[in-house]
């Protein structure tokens, strides 16, 4: 640890006192004095480079705030996100402004005292509480490119904020796996602070919850459930000794199994009762159709619209062709029963519903049921169905 930078101890103390839930992160940075740098910057490994001349003109609160700001760049992984967002070196200044806005909109109301004129979303006419990616998209569209120079002073936050290595960076710092652990530790401290002691800015709290319990994308869950249901039913292109293998004539004395691949029939029961959101239903149906197409089963798909009673089955090759008629009451039991009586009988039935429906007491015989529960408040499906929750279209706050 280097404490060459004058005033660093007081600045970190101020930061740890004002933001106790970030203390581990604040003390986790390694600060080096780099005379002549002209800014205070951070790299991807939690090392801060500070020009003593720039930092010397600030109060302890201002330097402490800059450190907190840089710690947030680390916590929110702006460097990796810049790479993921395909930020080119030429666009880095815009990304830096977007990343700064994401941090500052939350922390300045919580008592961050940054020197100079910190970037805020309202500077470029955006709402607060959005993601850096959204701000960045807004900036690249709105701003004339000639204006894309980094601001004066400390506003070049360094490679830790945009993923572009700077030439003043030195090797060392935290190894990525230790940085990972430190990040989780800060997240745990934020959660503990918010439940035991006091308030935490909402953006940081959301970040901490997402780090500790990441939400799994429902599309992945639905895909896994469908693949599993289809694999179980299809015998998964399985090998069987019931029929002789076509290769058996080539090698006498060897007993070879044959490859058997029953093609499962599929049905989708769509809840069309009045309580359903059309947009969500269309999204889920399109997802199911896309998955089946990937599995090579799209042609086996039949769709049933169901409210209190099931409508006729429609054989479709695209989700756009489905006409969903209905309204009124809900009984998915009727839909499942109707799917059972289809010939050929479907082996897998996907039920897309908002969950406000009676269900059959027992699983239908010889058929797997995957329930897609649409909307965040949907009640549980019965235990015999594999269920996947499809939350509503997330607001900007829920995404990360």
């Amino acid at each position: 640890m280097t404490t060459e930078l004058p005033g660093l101890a007081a600045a970190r103390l101020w930061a740890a006192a004002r933001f106790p839930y970030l203390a581990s992160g604040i003390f986790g940075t390694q600060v080096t004095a780099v005379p002549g740098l002209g800014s205070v910057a951070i790299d991807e490994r939690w090392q801060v480079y500070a020009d003593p001349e720039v930092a010397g003109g600030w109060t302890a609160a201002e330097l402490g705030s800059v450190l907190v700001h840089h710690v947030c760049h680390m916590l929110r992984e702006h460097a990796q996100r810049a790479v993921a967002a395909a930020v080119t070196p030429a666009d880095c200044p815009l990304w830096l402004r977007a990343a700064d806005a994401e941090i500052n909109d939350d922390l300045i109301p919580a008592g961050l005292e940054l020197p100079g004129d910190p970037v805020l979303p309202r500077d470029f006419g955006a709402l607060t509480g959005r993601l850096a990616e959204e701000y960045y998209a807004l900036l690249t569209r709105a701003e004339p490119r000639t204006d894309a120079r980094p601001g004066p002073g400390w506003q070049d936050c360094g490679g830790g904020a945009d993923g572009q290595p700077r030439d003043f960076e030195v090797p060392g710092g935290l190894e990525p796996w230790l940085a990972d652990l430190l990040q989780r530790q800060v997240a745990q401290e934020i959660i503990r602070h918010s439940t035991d002691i006091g308030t935490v800015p909402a953006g940081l709290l959301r970040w901490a919850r997402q780090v500790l319990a990441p939400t799994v994308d429902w599309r992945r869950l639905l895909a896994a459930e469908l693949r599993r249901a289809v694999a179980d039913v299809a015998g998964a292109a399985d090998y069987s000794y019931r029929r002789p293998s076509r290769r058996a004539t080539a090698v006498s004395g060897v007993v070879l199994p044959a490859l058997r691949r029953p093609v499962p029939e599929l049905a989708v029961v769509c809840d069309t009762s009045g309580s359903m959101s059309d947009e969500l239903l269309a999204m889920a149906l399109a997802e199911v159709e896309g998955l089946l197409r990937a599995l090579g089963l799209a042609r086996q798909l039949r769709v049933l619209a169901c409210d209190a009673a099931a409508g006729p089955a429609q054989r479709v090759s695209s989700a756009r062709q489905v006409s969903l008629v209905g309204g009124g009451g809900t009984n998915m039991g009727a839909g499942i029963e109707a799917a059972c009586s289809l010939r050929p009988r479907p082996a897998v039935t996907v039920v897309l519903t908002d969950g406000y429906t009676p269900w059959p007491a027992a699983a239908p015989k010889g058929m797997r049921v995957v329930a897609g529960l649409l909307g965040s408040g949907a009640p549980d499906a019965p235990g015999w169905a594999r269920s996947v929750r499809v939350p509503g279209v997330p607001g900007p706050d829920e995404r990360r």
Partner: protein
Amino acid sequence: MNAAQPNAVVEALGVAVAAREPVLLWGAPGTGKTSAIRAMASAMDLPCETVIASIREPSDFAGLPVVTGSAVRFAPPLWATRLAEAGTGVLFLDELSTAPPAVQAALLRVVLERTVGDLTLPDDVAVVAAANPPEQAADGWDLSAPLANRLCHLTWETSPRGIADGLAGGWGAPPVPLLPAGWETGEQLNRSLVGAFLQVRPALAIAPPASPAEAGRGWPSPRTWEMAARLMTAAEAAKAGEQARSALVRGAIGDGAGVEFLAWLVDMDLPDPEEVLASPASFRLPERGDRAYAALAAVAAAVAARPTPERWTAGWQVLGGCAQAVPDVAATAARVLARCRPDGTPLPAEIKLFAPVLRDAGLL
């Protein structure tokens, strides 16, 4: 989460091959998994047999049943015989996730016990597999949980920067870790570390995946904990980087349990606050700032939980000893301590040490 650095993954792969633990590389098609494994095998001077699992039948791994008189023999295929004759080598199973479930089931014995039909491959054969994540391979199956549990899962990531460098300057031979003879002796220590951790978190001793989406990756079970201990030992013996060690541990027991175990390992270096309070002079300040903060905050919290005059004074002695080296860290802990002063205890001399820095920070 921080993505594992690609070179750390290559290093981890080398350690797993050197330790002869079965390992599986997950990655998008076309990112050089196969060529990396072949390059590694040739750098280690091992014969490499590539078997594409997705176009094989179960009998290719379980042995072809051959009727000889009144008995059935399970004849091994030629690649297995070649490896058995060489006595060593790398068995590379490509396209594992596109193999049908029946083939995956037949692979269970090959991966763990190196048994193909009636033939047992020599212990010195390393098993390496590669797979595309199911969401990237249209005809992919999820890896079955029993097969997933027999492998150490490494995520093969490529960075645009790495690709640019590789195209311009060549990919280079992968580094080959060297395991000194008798490296297994260190395994007992790591096994007892795992045991100590599992006493704290018994729920993680065995935790099969709950949802099908995570079924295809590593998950904690007695077998994978043993694998993690062995891989940790190998990584330490080969002097691999900590990043590679972390990738191996997380690959064996899964991300969730892996992170908890690694965090526990890091925390184990922290001094016990009660011991520090019993003899303040023995306290050694951890080097890294956040570790120093964790140690001092733990001491302050221990005093705050049971503030007796003796403990309070001892706490100040610990903080006073650190005031010179890390004034800000010690002062942060001192603020906690100052709030829990037991009635009638005289102010300690150390409190003066913090006055300048507190005044500078505007907190006095």
